[in-house]
């Protein structure tokens, strides 16, 4: 029986920021379409670098990364914008514009990708509704809680209705209650068919979501797939992940 080609494929992926600092050191990974995975690991383990490679913010030094069969090493700078429209990116710092209201933040991103004002007016309410923030459409970011700000950031990532969503530490700055909300939204998007890749060290959310977990350490995959041992180590010491040697 033929198996479907993986949606995301990393082949011995290496990223060197300079001669002394490596982001990734030979990571191989496959993610199926519609899957939800957590990339876990301590700071500097390489989880954010994977997000950056997949979103074409960083170019692989060696190896390759493929999305839907397309090698990212062969993507030219001119092709990057079109590729990014197929990927929703939720940055760690929300990246909201403080002088724009919630709906304007989403509308601004839509205008930047060429949508008309008419489209903005028609589509923004539905996008905000998807992440349950429509009731705060006229608020400024500084009037929102961390969780609400993160929901706006997710809403902005959904403007192109992407099949893939990359979230870098989406619950990193949030309390447990708001973290639950965000993960629930991501799970909900996943249930609608969106492939989700989340870089996190939030053990509670990883445990609660009960999805596939990839553990990284020192730029390499330490433990592939959902593993109780990983969770156990994360529970014991969230900043000290188990390595092959331990």
């Amino acid at each position, binding site marked *: 029986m033929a198996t479907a080609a993986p949606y995301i494929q990393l082949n011995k992926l290496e990223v060197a920021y300079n001669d002394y600092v490596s982001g990734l050191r030979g990571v191989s990974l496959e993610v199926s379409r519609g899957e939800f995975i957590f990339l876990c690991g301590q700071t500097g383990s390489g989880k954010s670098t994977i997000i950056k490679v997949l979103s074409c913010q960083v170019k692989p030094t060696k190896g390759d990364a493929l999305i839907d069969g397309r090698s990212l090493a062969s993507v030219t*700078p001119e092709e990057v914008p079109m590729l990014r429209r197929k990927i929703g990116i939720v940055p760690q710092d929300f990246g909201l514009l403080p002088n724009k209201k919630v709906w304007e933040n989403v509308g601004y991103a839509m205008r*930047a990708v060429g949508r008309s*004002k008419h489209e903005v007016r028609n589509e923004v309410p539905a996008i905000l509704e998807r992440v349950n923030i429509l009731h705060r459409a006229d608020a400024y970011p500084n009037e929102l809680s961390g969780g609400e700000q993160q929901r706006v950031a997710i809403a902005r990532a959904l403007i192109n209705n992407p099949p893939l969503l990359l979230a870098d530490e989406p619950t990193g700055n949030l309390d447990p209650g708001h973290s639950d909300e965000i993960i629930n939204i991501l799970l909900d998007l996943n249930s609608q068919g969106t492939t989700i890749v989340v870089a996190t060290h939030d053990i509670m959310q990883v445990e609660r979501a009960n999805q596939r977990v990839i553990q990284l350490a020192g730029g390499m995959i330490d433990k592939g797939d959902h593993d109780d041992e990983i969770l156990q180590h994360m529970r014991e010491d969230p900043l000290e992940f188990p390595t092959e040697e331990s």
Partner: protein
Amino acid sequence: MFDRLEFLLNEAFVSLRRNKWITFAAITTSAMALFIIGGFAFAYFGLASFAGTQESKFDINVFARTDASPEQVQALGKRLEKLDGVKAVTFRSKAEVWKAFQKENPEISSGLEIENPMPDTFNITFTDLKKAKDIVAYARKMPEVAPKDGVQYMGDVQALIEQVMSAIRWLGLVLGTVMLATGGILIYNTIRLTMVARKKEMRIMELVGATRQTVWTPLMIEGVAEGVMGALLATAVLWIAHSVVAKLLETSLSVVKVGEFPLAVTAIVLCLSGAAYGLVCSYLAIRERPTEELPR
């Protein structure tokens, strides 16, 4: 399309509003650069035009040898006409010259009962004053031309005008270049500051998949706007300066008539130059964006 243009223009003018003072500095410096270049260009072309109208004052007189035969004199006239840079050659016979001299200087010539001492004379005017020296040198070597003082040339005044024009050209070039460089650096810095101030917007644009043109165009519009605003300011200052100088020249040197200020032409030429200048400066600023901020 208008919807898109509105978005890009709005982005550009948001930046202009945000960096008010640095924008003001960039506009005024560009205006100064364009004013200096424009002002010197006006002075240069004005002087060149003045020199053109004064060409008849820089004519030369070629005197034929007193012992030259009428055929030789005629041949000399034909050869002079064929020289490059000669506009017209007018012949005056020795009798005409003597008669004119007697008329102009009656106190000297009256009572003189002498033989006509004047030679046959050719008056030469030029199409190109720069060639006058060559023509003078060539005429002096002609066998039909009187060996001593055979060519009368008022070259000093012409040389002075040429020197002044050359000085204006060089001064305009040097001062204009310095001011252009300063204005360019200021526009460049303004765009760089805009990029820092709008780092967040640009990052978001890139993350959601905005094309490079969408991210760059507002910055380039900003550079062009600064160049054009500088050009408009320079045009206004030039206009005022022109009317002041014209009034001064016309009252102090009543013979000089300064032409009207070509407002439309100046505004168009300076605006196009300012726009091109702003475009180049902003393009250079955008191109030098640190690589770590680039998408790839």
